[in-house]
């Protein structure tokens, strides 16, 4: 009961914001074409669900986002671990990572379209490239920080180098790696929607742009709020997953 109360209290500001939104539109304090009432946005949301538009575009977006993110987790994780344990590889790859790090990934949208066209491929590539960076850095820092006494213990108990990577380096790197993936998760949403907004015939971003350009602002807001909620939910679920995975840390 107390937990429910506390959760309710925590999200109270959101409820207040929603009420204020509704109030200012009814009191004619804002232009309703720029900010339609929240209740109308809700109606538009139900319509979008009914005619399947939100679901179909959502499916396309979630597919691109999850494939791109998954590739980034494995690619970036592997890259970071290898860089941390293999000096020569590190010397070769590190400058590339450093160069790529500050580049605004949205600048690559036209490039990925040029390479892979307007479909799923270009979005997946963009998300992969953008999300790989924080994952790589997390894995790299985590693995670099692993205790050499743990490595030596495993070696003396008969673990070969590959085993040690899996049994010692990866779990040692896990806390930082998982944090990197959290950043990547947020980044995936950003890159997904911005790329779909610019060049796409499908997806949340496309739908936002389309509804906005045809003047269906209630619908546009409904999609924006849906994306915001999905991003928030994904982050919460991911944090619960981390807590469960790192329960040994106390």
């Amino acid at each position, binding site marked *: 009961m107390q937990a429910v109360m506390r959760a309710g209290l925590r999200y109270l500001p959101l409820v207040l914001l929603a009420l204020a939104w509704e109030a200012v539109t009814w009191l004619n304090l804002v232009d309703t074409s720029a900010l339609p009432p929240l209740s109308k946005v809700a109606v538009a949301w139900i319509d979008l669900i009914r005619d399947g538009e939100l679901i179909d575009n959502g499916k396309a977006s979630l597919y691109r986002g999850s494939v791109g993110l998954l590739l980034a987790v494995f690619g970036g994780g592997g890259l970071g671990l290898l860089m941390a344990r293999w000096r020569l590889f590190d010397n070769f790859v590190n400058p590339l990572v450093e160069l790529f790090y500050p580049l605004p990934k949205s600048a690559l949208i036209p490039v990925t379209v040029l390479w892979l066209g307007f479909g799923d491929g270009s979005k997946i590539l963009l998300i992969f490239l953008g999300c790989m960076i924080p994952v790589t850095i997390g894995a790299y820092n985590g693995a670099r920080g692993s205790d050499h006494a*743990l490595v*030596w*213990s495993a*070696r*003396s108990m*008969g673990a070969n180098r590959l*085993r040690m990577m899996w*049994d010692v380096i990866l779990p040692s790197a896990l806390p930082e790696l998982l944090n990197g993936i959290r950043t990547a998760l947020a980044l995936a949403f950003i890159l997904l929607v911005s790329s779909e907004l610019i060049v796409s015939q499908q997806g949340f971003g496309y739908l936002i742009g389309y509804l906005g350009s045809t003047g269906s602002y209630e619908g546009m807001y409904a999609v924006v709020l849906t994306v915001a909620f999905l991003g928030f939910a994904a982050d919460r679920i991911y944090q619960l997953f981390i807590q469960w995975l790192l329960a*040994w840390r*106390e």
Partner: protein
Amino acid sequence: MDGQSQIVIERVNHTYRPPRGRSVLALSDVSLEVRPREFLALLGPSGCGKSTLLYLVGGFLPIEAGRIAVKGKTVTAPGPDRGIVFQHFALFPWKTVRANILYGLERQGMPRAERERRAQAFIDLVGLSGFEDSYPSQLSGGMKQRTAIARTLAFDPDILLMDEPFGALDAQTRALMQTELLSIWNRTPKTVIFVTHDVQEAVYLAQRIAVMSARPGRIKAVIETKVDHRDPGVTRSKEFVEKVDEIWNLVREEAIKAEAKKPSA
């Protein structure tokens, strides 16, 4: 001589090369032999290279000059014939007590039923029954070190390398662990190299003490000790106190030298 000695260290030098700054000669011309089932203490001031020597025997660091052989075979890499126990336990924090102890047995390819049985036997041996499913973060320092010792004993190395294993424990726990280590060692005789800077600990535990000089570490003296562990008041006996005094006199000079070489903070 090799026939008598289990570990032979011959004219070993070691230079410590930090990623930044000047390299330092850590060990200079160290020679030492350890007999099978002997309990040998490596005693010296901090920074004298005694841990480095232990790591070289363990095969964790490359041997640059000289030779180290275990049972006549030159050491080139770590191996399950040499188990190690570290000052800060080096338990896998993501594994439970049981899983930590099982790890070495899994790597040795022991069948499942046998390794479960063996792990439990060692959990009981070090008095950790009831804590099998605890994570290291839930244990006290003494319990962590018991787990680490059980983990190393479980895969049955001939040689036990101990790197200031009780240095991170409080005085009471340390005294208890010393007694326990001796009782375990009496039941499962192994060759032990025990690194410490605590003279009393060395005299109490070891059969022989190799006293090392301040950096660069050399073997300054090797001294036989004999302590009657059946006598609970032995650490207050005249012979014990005199032995500690004798060795302390050897170490003191080195400790002063080591102190003088420390970079001023």
